[in-house]
């Protein structure tokens, strides 16, 4: 009487009906939950990080005076072509300022629309006509940021590279300087590879 025999594994289980009801209910919830998912891709962590970088880059770059009409005019961040950031950039723009300036996000499809943009991002999908597009932007004092292998050789200024699960960047300081942009030494120090400036030929 003290020691009941070891029980069989099938001890007191949930009644079968209740068990099936639980499964069915849960299944309905699950299906109901899946249904509305048909609209917008959630932004991957990679692009959340890249968006944060864009904001940070803007803090470390000095534009030539004519780039802004006055001290209060906003800093415009453009995304050329396809936008991989979802609402990420807009969210940053809402809560942050750069040196007292508001941030405006502009989606740009053609070079003509790029007027007024201070920082332009070119996604991997735009790798096709990079060299032409970048050349067309010259003289606009636009900080160009990309994420494709050939971005720097095509004349881009800052390029994202993935390394061991982290996002790093390389900087072509010469290209930036040609357009009158000053990239802070702090940022240059952190860049993966700084392209040396072409040697100046003495007159």
């Amino acid at each position: 009487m003290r020691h009941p025999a070891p029980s069989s594994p099938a001890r007191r289980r949930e009644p079968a009906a209740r068990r099936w009801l639980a499964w069915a209910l849960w299944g309905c919830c699950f299906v109901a939950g899946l249904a509305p998912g048909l609209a917008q891709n959630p932004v991957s962590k990679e692009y959340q990080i890249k968006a944060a970088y864009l904001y940070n880059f803007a803090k470390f770059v000095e534009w030539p005076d004519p780039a802004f009409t006055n001290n209060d005019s906003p800093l415009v961040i453009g995304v050329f072509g396809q936008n991989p950031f979802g609402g990420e950039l807009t969210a940053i723009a809402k809560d942050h300022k750069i040196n007292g300036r508001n941030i405006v996000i502009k989606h740009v499809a053609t070079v003509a629309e790029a007027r007024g943009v201070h920082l332009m991002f070119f996604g991997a999908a735009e790798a096709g006509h990079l060299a032409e597009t970048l050349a067309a932007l010259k003289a606009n004092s636009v900080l160009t940021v990309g994420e494709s292998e050939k971005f720097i050789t095509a004349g881009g200024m800052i390029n994202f590279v993935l390394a061991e699960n982290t996002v790093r960047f390389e900087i072509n300081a010469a290209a930036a300087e040609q357009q009158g942009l000053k990239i802070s030494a702090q940022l240059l120090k952190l860049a993966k590879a700084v392209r040396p400036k072409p040697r100046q030929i003495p007159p």
Partner: protein
Amino acid sequence: MKPRGFLFPDSALAVPMSNQIRSRQPRSRRSGQSGLQPQNLLRQALSFPAIVSLALTAGTLPSFAADGGTTNAPAASLADLSVEQLMNESVTSVDRRETKFEESAAAISVITQDDIRRLGITTIPDALRLVPGLDVAQINSHEWAVSARGFNGEFANKLLVLVDGRSIYSTGFGGVVWGAEDVPMEDVDRIEVIRGPGASLWGANAVNGVINIITKGAKDTQGVLVSVTGGTFDQPTTTVRYGTRLATNLYCRVYGKVSNRDGLETPGGQDAPDRTLTAQGGTRLDWNPSDENQVTLQGDFFRDRFVESQDYAILSPPYVQSFNQANYDSGGNVLGRWTHDFSDSSSLAIQTYYDRFKEEQAGAIETANTLDFDAQHRFLLGNRNDITWGLGCRNVAADFTSSPFVMWSQATEHDQLYSSFVQDEISLLPDRLKLTLGSKFEDNSLTGFEVEPTVRLLWTPTARQSVWAAISRAVRTPDWTDLHGDANVQTLPPTPTLPLPVLVTVMGNPSVDSEELTAYELGYRVELTKHLSLDAAAFYNDYSQLIAPVGGSTEIEAGASPPYASVVIPEENAGTAHTYGLEVSARWDATDYWHLTANYSWLETQMGFYAADTQPGPQQQAQLRSSFDLPYHLELNGDVSFVDRVFAPYGIGVMNIPSYVRLDLGLVWHATRNLELGVWGENLAQDRHIEYTSYTSTLVTEIPRGIIGRITFRF
């Protein structure tokens, strides 16, 4: 009724005090209930209110103060990180253990390595004191009572604890042997604490909370570390660690730690007999063969020896005997984990471990071997669905030897658990409204099929605030003592109405089912300014089928020498309870060099089976912690905490443990790049204070004021 399988030393039946202890209830009180049948008397006695609670040290303290705060990882968005920080941010945060806190619809707190280092914390339970609402009480040098949202005790069985993904919750008695978990504090990366049920992901026993102790990767522990801690109260504790790179992307570390925790003090200020010596060592290997693959292999072993005062009931006056008993724990584990990223939006993690835990306590030996396999896959489905699903199985084989302490009705136990879970985080309105549906489905050999679903909703009306709500179900499966461990609880002395000693035994019941919880939670987080944030959670918990000893039968052992009455009370799913409460935490970054954290929690417990006026947890706790960086590489850190009175199980009654204040103050000096010195005054507010009582001893031990110092070399 037949005697149990242990020896009778002469005429005095050695009866251990196991689950509960001799009550100090005045004899007259019991005899006043004349005419009662012993079992009724006991049933009465087991319900807490019938017992006169004992205020050991009277006197109430000023009703406010606080202790270390925690850390609700302040919710900086990525854009607020510096370029350097962004460079180290991993693009693959895909594991269920890596959800961002400010985005989770649950009450989550994180204790960081920095918190632990600054406050000179030497044990995991002491680190857990920093979490709002967590109830942490030290019993002696080897035992702590740790619980969330009530139901605390030496064997607090509703809190699931994992170290690097390996469960350290004992299926044998339900709870954690905190004294045997001697992770080097320097290796702890962070401790994530979820208050409230986590069963939809972690399964059974994640009822009132889940604690994830996460150690650093081998890459982050390179070089040599030697740390020696000691003080007025703790003998030297030494940690030695060495980490190196074996090949490109292959890092390893080895460590050894010897801890020497001295006994606490008796209420009179004498040294209590308890003391603990622990040796632990281990190694960890981390290999990143490519960006997509990550492999971890780790293992630890430990052995400890601890002395405790232990009580045994006997059948002749004084009906209880105390011994200083040497006990041992030993064990080890090996764990392997592989994570693979198929793409930015899909990843797989596979983990397996083997764990062995052997406990020798008062002659009873319990050995448990656990083999666990776990796989989970997370992917984005179409547009708005972030899905994680997984499969797992666990096999636990254990054997027991009976002792006067616990008698087992079977000598071996073999349990299987098969589980699956699926969770979908649905973004109903991008960045605004997120619905999480998930459930664990388990089939275990103890209670059969269990479903543990959750529904969570997170609403983020603005970037600086969020509101969440959740309804979840969780279960605690019965532990082996509930099922077939029989414990002689105590001997009641003879009374005029029943002139025989009464031996009380709580008997395991193989047909008990799981305890059940339905939890309703509500939370709010707000960033009031860039420097001030607030995190609040409220809950209502509805428990049913709580396992408790009820009823019972009596037999008179007239032929025994001496004759006695035996009362056997089986465990039943008889209890119900409701708890509700509130946990609030605020963090203020006053300046770059001064950070303050304040916590407050309030808990109300209504036991259906036990009496309504008992409080199984402190009703109120308040904490305030400050860390201040001084010039000359000095840091001044302090915390003050108030813990309300609790009624701790003591014998078959309860003891009223008065409220207390803890005050710790410490100074850390980074003398050179390689040398760090720290000194802390601990428990400065009072000479000594009691925090909790032990099930197995009537000896009360208190925590004295002390000073501790630490030297850390890194090179």
